[in-house]
């Protein structure tokens, strides 16, 4: 696998897990969050960079190395913050891969049409659960939770 420069915006549960996993995969990872305490979730094994600041502020993005970034992941708790940061990364800095969580399905669809890769937690989870109830089978074979536990091992 080719080594990539990854920026993760938002160090909540999703952001910290993604950052740790990508770091374990051998990528260069930088995490941005508004508050320092959020970085506690990264644990002791994570040796990537941590940047405190607002992910929509271009000074902060530059400090995080956005000019040499291959992958930009937006997972703050706010849909609109994710949308704005994703557009800055996509439009201004031409980051090749921008992935954004947008929990409102309509906004997720609208911005997907603009060329930003969006993932909607709402439809993803409800769809997976519904399929399981109807068919008794999981649509996703991979057990991501086991993978998470191996991060802690």
């Amino acid at each position, binding site marked *: 696998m080719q080594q990539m420069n990854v920026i993760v915006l938002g160090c909540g549960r999703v952001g910290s897990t993604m950052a740790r996993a990508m770091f374990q995969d051998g990528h260069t990872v930088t995490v941005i969050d508004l508050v320092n305490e959020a970085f506690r979730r990264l644990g002791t094994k994570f040796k990537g960079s941590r940047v405190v600041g607002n992910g*929509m*502020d271009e000074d902060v993005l530059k400090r995080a190395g956005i000019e040499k970034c291959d992958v930009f992941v937006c997972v703050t708790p706010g849909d609109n913050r994710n949308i704005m940061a994703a*557009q800055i990364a996509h*439009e*201004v800095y031409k980051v090749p891969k921008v992935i954004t969580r947008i929990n409102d399905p*309509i*906004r997720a669809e*609208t911005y997907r*049409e603009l060329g930003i890769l969006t993932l909607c937690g709402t439809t993803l989870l409800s769809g997976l659960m519904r399929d399981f109830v109807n068919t008794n089978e999981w649509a996703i074979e991979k057990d991501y939770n086991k993978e998470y536990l191996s991060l802690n091992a």
Partner: protein
Amino acid sequence: MYIIIVGGGSVGYYLAKTLIKTHHEVLVLEKNRGTHKTVSEELGEVVMQGDGCEVRIMEEAGVGRADAVIAVTGDDEDNLVICQMAKMKFNVPRTISRINDPRNESLFHRLGIDATVNATKIIYNLIEQEIETNEVIPIAALKRGNIEIVEIEIGPKSPVLGKRISNLQLPEDALIISVIRSDHGMIPGPDTKFELEDSVIALVSADKEHDLRDIFTEINS
């Protein structure tokens, strides 16, 4: 015109009041229930509770027939999404956004917002006009700030004092359009001499403003 204002803070409130007075049809959308209650007590039926980023709420607000959507919340990311959604989902002809962080202005234009109002910058410019003396004071910016109209006070140490306009080495992109002497404005000619306390009004491109300042103001001020 039918205008939807998103954000019922003080900007949205006074904007709505002014627009209603000028006989526009106005709807104010406010997310926060407490703020909504306060504003609707004052403005009545034209205030609706809801999140302007939600398509369902905007449909209820009648965005389909809106002539303009104005986003004036205190968060730039919300204002951006409100305007973009109005444009992309509902083809609203005109979207206007308040900008809180002045650095976002060019980004918003790039992302398709028709017009922005940058209150921080406007207030900053006003303050600059108040506190700067003997300097080049911006009065108005034309063409998004590429050309400026500036005012220069001639102080006792100004190097141009007593000189004629024709003796100045003005930058190419600068033009003196008026000299105001004791509240009397005149159109200057090549022979106009500068006197103490003259106010010089000039048209200058933004990147030549510093050159103009160097000509008119004392070096060691």
